[in-house]
């Protein structure tokens, strides 16, 4: 009988080894699934994991796209991780992302067609502020009435989606668009656009912001008193109380920061890669970022890597659909497996499997 014994300290070696083992296990299990579906498993795995990075034909295009896809995930996940560490459960980053995009785009569109260097910074502020405000609704309700923030933040996602549809159809609709839904394309409005900063790198301001957020979160958690308080509030609310941590402040900071970063992610996306406010602008980044946060073990550097890995499976998954005709359903199942294995293998970091007589469990 195998049982688990808690390590005195989390194993450094295993914390690096488990993700690699998980990816290998996924390749085997996923390969079997692809084989059952009648596809060549080796080719499928190669296309998903290898081709986006190293294919001679198009890797130089898809590699930068990794950053484009990963940036919003990382930006949102960093914010969420602070809250998750403190035990503040913001499940509604998707809504804050949408509201950030709406506010930012609205500011940009209000100036159209004026050209000025000040417009984009104002949009960034509006995007951040919009996300922040949307997250303040669950924060303030929690402080004032102890209303559960999971429920409020989650339901506000649906409200944000309705607002988005309404904006795309009316207030922000492109007046030159012949009555079709969707705003003007911000990519075609230089003062409001969030372009690729260095051609061929995929890096736009959102990528820069994601990297800054990673560094900022790292310093906050490692060095700053607030970071310590956040961790304490999550690990032991009672101890935090006695240490003089003000829970209301923690709630406002955690929800506020995660809303702000999600709002920023929305703004950078709408002004850059997406280009416009449309009915279907929301694309689940807010929910996927929750997975990214936990895959990265709530650690800034881990989140960076997890975000890139998720982005890789998305882009590789598209290629696999395109080149091998693997249905999206199989790709989703494959992503699910990868997450299962990553989460399952994590146990080896904190626990040691021991063969021997089991105690009564």
């Amino acid at each position: 009988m195998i049982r688990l014994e808690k390590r005195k300290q989390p194993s450094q070696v295993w914390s690096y080894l488990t993700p690699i083992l998980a990816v290998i296990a996924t390749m085997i299990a996923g390969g079997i699934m692809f084989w059952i579906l009648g596809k060549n498993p080796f080719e499928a795995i190669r296309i998903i994991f290898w081709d986006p990075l190293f294919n001679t034909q198009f890797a130089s295009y898809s590699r930068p796209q990794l950053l484009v896809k990963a940036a919003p995930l990382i930006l949102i996940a960093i914010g969420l991780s602070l809250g998750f560490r403190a035990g503040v459960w913001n499940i509604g980053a998707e809504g804050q992302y949408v509201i950030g995009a709406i506010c930012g785009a609205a500011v940009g569109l209000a100036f159209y067609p004026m050209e000025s260097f000040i417009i984009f910074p104002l949009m960034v502020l509006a995007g951040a502020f919009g996300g922040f405000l949307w997250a303040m609704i669950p924060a303030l309700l929690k402080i004032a009435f102890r209303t559960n923030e999971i429920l409020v933040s989650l339901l506000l996602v649906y409200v944000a989606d309705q607002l988005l549809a309404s904006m795309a159809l009316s207030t922000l609709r492109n007046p030159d668009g012949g009555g079709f839904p969707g705003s003007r394309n911000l990519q075609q409005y230089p003062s409001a656009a969030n372009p690729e900063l260095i051609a061929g790198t995929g890096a736009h301001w959102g990528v820069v912001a994601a990297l800054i957020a990673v560094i900022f979160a790292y310093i906050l958690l490692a060095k700053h008193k607030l970071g310590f308080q956040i961790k304490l509030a999550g690990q032991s609310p009672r101890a935090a109380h006695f240490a003089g941590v003000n829970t209301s402040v923690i709630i406002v900071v955690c929800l506020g920061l995660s809303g702000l970063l999600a709002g920023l992610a929305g703004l950078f996306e709408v002004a850059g890669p997406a280009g416009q406010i449309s009915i279907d602008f929301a694309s689940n980044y807010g929910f996927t970022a929750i997975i990214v946060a936990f895959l990265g073990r709530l650690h800034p550097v881990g989140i960076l890597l997890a975000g890139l890995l998720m982005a890789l499976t998305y882009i590789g998954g598209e290629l696999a659909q395109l080149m091998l005709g693997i249905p999206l359903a199989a790709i989703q199942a494959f992503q699910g497996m990868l997450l299962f294995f990553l989460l399952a293998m994590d146990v080896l970091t904190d626990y040691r499997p021991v063969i021997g007589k089991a105690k009564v469990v």
Partner: protein
Amino acid sequence: MQLKTILTTATMALGLATAALADGHEKTKVGFVYVGPVGDFGWSYEHNEGRLAVMEEFGDSVETTFVESVPEGADAERVLTQMALSGHDLIFTTSFGYMDATMNVAAKFPDVKFEHATGYKRADNVSTYGARFYEGRAVIGHIAGKMTETNKVGYIASYPIPEVIRGINSAYLHAQKVNPDVEFNVVWVYSWFDPAKEADAAKALIEQGADVIMQHTDSTAPMTIAEEAGIVAFGQASDMKNFGPNAQLTAIIDNWAPYYIDRVRAVKDGTWSSMDTWDGIAPGMVELAPISDKVPADVKAEAEAMAAAIAAGDYHPFTGPINKQDGSAWLAEGEVADDGTLAGMNFYIEGVQGEIPN
């Protein structure tokens, strides 16, 4: 710089591929980008049926690929670029929201042909195509006007966009022509596809006295509800006879196959050129399912005659005199709506109850 180099190389490679094509040695590679899953049994499903028809028509001489559930925006642009980079000759982008992505990618790959559904931006290598579903709606409007006993027609609408508003106007216009007392109750569900909500909407409409249901959403839920309630309905996108054997009077079927086969053939022959296609009943892009026996023979004959007249070009569903909802004149006696106004239609015609959201 690097991107530019690779793009140039790729375009050169594609140029070679196209050259090889003309000799008939290489397969034509055709890509499809869908906004929903192919299993939605609605919009994306019908486009995929078109793809399957292309495969059947050309056999081994074409290779088709598709990517499903591609979000509009950045993801669409990436998928399109990767399709272009991996040697596709022709790419169908099957949702309005792919318009800017299609234009951007098309500008980078002048040798790849693009076909964008329901949009209005074109380029030398970008065509647009759409279907005049309002022609079908005119026919079902006529049938609905004749069939309703409560004079209430329930209409389940998705989003207030020109396509949907045009459908409401066309159906109402022709229902009201044969039944001046008819009333349309429109419920907006703010979704293209939400079976549960569509079912609830159908129920709500039936409870309000509607005895004919029309839908401009994709799921078969309203048809099933109509069947249960013992009333009649019209199928949308696909023939929904299976789900409402008694309820379905007819269905407006999206049939992209003839167009897709035409365009693929044009690429193979080297005769493809950029154009704007807005086809209706005539070439079979808009198809009507067989009209049910529940419809009295004379009504059925009238409906079929109307479809034939539209197909022959003898009748345009929007022929004046037609006023706008506020009573102001839109089309004078005998005047026919121009495509521009139809494409951007954002007003109700006289007699439609309620307001367009926003």
